[in-house]
């Protein structure tokens, strides 16, 4: 059947892309804090709001070096004006710091903090996606296979959650927890809250697929051979939802990255000394800080890159994003 060959191939391609993307994110979470040139909490005295320092390969005399920057000197502490010291070359190993993406108000390296923040921000997004899909698949399977009142109750709840603006739901649930928490507790709280808000669309899709697949001959054959409901669902029906769940994951991850940023930004997520992307943006958003030091918006760029990467992975699947070239 040539008609069905397309969608199935696409579905496999998308799962493969989603899987690859998750691997990339996992690698980034593990490696990024390692790549950071400085400790994310280290404060360099005398370097508040230092601008990004451009990398050079050739110095003024025309000699070649390993990548380096020229040292900065604070000439006006009140206006926070810096001057390049063209005689002094700095690298990540030298006594003076090299702020590739500038420094924040405490003289901390923005690049190191963005890299360290990847672990928290992507970690929350990844784990809460997994949690949301687990709840969604379970609820969807229960609704689709169980039918009757289980189906009715679960789907009404799902409808309600879908209709509400997600961020308010997240806000209300987070607000119901203690306001001051340690970083570890915030991490767990955010994963739990986001997982609880994100499951309904996954549940609806899984339910639909299960309703169709239960009527197929292979499912009936499994039942005829004496397989219990547990085995029929887990072994035969749920694998059919794999492609759908991969697509769902690609929808949820960017939404959750944004949700973490928003919550931390308004003071209900990670709080400032912790380098999560949202908490860093909170620093940048205070007063006129970002206007004077626009490099503090670097975590925002990191978020855009992540979301864009996920949208690219969706490319083959989502006509909303890409249109259909050449059709």
């Amino acid at each position, binding site marked *: 059947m040539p008609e069905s060959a397309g969608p199935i191939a696409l579905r496999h391609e998308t799962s493969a892309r989603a899987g690859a993307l998750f691997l990339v994110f996992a690698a980034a979470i593990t490696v990024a804090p390692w790549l950071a040139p400085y400790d994310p909490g280290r404060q360099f005295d005398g370097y508040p709001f230092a601008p990004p320092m451009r990398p050079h390969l050739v110095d003024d005399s025309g000699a070649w070096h390993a990548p380096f920057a020229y040292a900065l000197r604070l000439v006006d502490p009140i206006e926070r004006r810096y001057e390049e010291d063209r005689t002094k070359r700095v690298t990540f190993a030298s006594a003076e710091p090299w702020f590739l993406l500038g420094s924040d108000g405490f003289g901390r390296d923005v690049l190191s903090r963005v890299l360290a923040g990847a672990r928290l921000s992507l970690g929350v997004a990844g784990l809460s996606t997994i949690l949301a899909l687990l709840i969604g698949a379970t609820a969807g399977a229960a609704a689709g296979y169980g039918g009757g009142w289980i189906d009715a109750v679960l789907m009404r709840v799902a409808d*309600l959650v879908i*209709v*509400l*603006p*997600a*961020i*308010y739901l997240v*806000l*209300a*649930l987070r*607000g*119901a*927890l*203690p*306001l001051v928490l340690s970083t570890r507790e915030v991490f767990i709280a955010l994963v739990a809250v986001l997982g609880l808000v994100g499951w309904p669309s996954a549940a609806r899709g899984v339910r639909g697929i299960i309703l169709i697949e239960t009527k197929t001959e292979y499912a009936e054959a499994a039942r005829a051979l004496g397989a219990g409901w547990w085995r029929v669902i887990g072994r035969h029906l749920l694998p059919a939802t794999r492609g759908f769940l991969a697509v769902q994951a690609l929808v949820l991850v*960017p939404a959750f990255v*944004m949700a973490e*940023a*928003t919550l931390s*930004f*308004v*003071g*209900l997520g990670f709080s400032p000394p912790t380098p999560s992307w949202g908490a860093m*943006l909170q620093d*940048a*958003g205070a007063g*006129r800080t*970002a*206007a004077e030091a*626009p490099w503090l*918006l670097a975590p*925002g760029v990191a*978020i*855009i890159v992540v*979301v*864009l990467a996920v*949208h690219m992975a969706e490319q083959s699947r989502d*006509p*909303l*994003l*890409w*249109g*259909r*070239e050449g*059709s």
Partner: protein
Amino acid sequence: MLAFLLRRAVAALVLVFAVTSAALLLAQLAPGDFASREIGRTPEEMAAERHRLGLDLPVAEQYRRWLKRSLTLDLGESFQYQRPVIDLVRAGAANTALLAATALIVATLVGIPSGILTGSRRRGWLPRVIRGTSLLLLSVPPLISSLVLLTIAARTGWLPVAGIGGVSHLVVPTLALALPIAAMLERLQAQSIGDALVRPSAMAARARGIPTIRVVWRHGWRQSLGPILAIYGVIVGSLFSGSFAVEYVTSWPGLGNLMREALMTRDTYLVAGCAAAGAVCLAIGVLAADVAHAAADPRVRSDA
């Protein structure tokens, strides 16, 4: 049409009731309350304060009383502001609605025509640029778009950066909220009109000698309306979600800021009031989108 409207209105009422009750109960069950907020109070003072605010009653009793009063539109009094919740909420909701409505209009005026352009013409630099911009904008959450616009406004000094006032105060928050939605509408409209233009009816119109531009903007556009109107219900929700971040960044005194503050100070009735107002606005928005969709496409009225 009347039965359809009635069904939707009942669903909206249920939504408002469920959301408000859930918000109130959630806020009551949260650890800590308004009386325990101030440091340095003796237990006796705290107990007296709780009694004054009615927080010493069982949760079920508090809920029952609140429910009875709210039937007469008395949503209680805010602990923090010591003013009726309904007044605070009304002002916040009006500001949010103003922001959301302006953003929706801007997004529609920008998104739909550019979508028709990119959907009907694939070659040329203009559709390419629009498509690329849309893809980028779709990846920019309102939090970041508002931060970036704010930075630009502050650096150039062209526009006021915060608060509420004349039309110029509306520019930054509106654009921050509208641009991602305009991008979404553009992509959708492009897709939808692309589909409409390959239908036999469009081909027949062209074969009769009707100029392409008329086929696109008159015939194709009408047929592509269905899917677009269907998405407006969803957009109302994302307007609310987006406006929360935008309001906070630009200090826009809307419902989002009010609700955040109420949650953090454990101002229980204000939380419930905000939830109620939000749910009412949402229900009205979704209802309006549904009605527009049903008016354009009779098939929608029978099912759902």
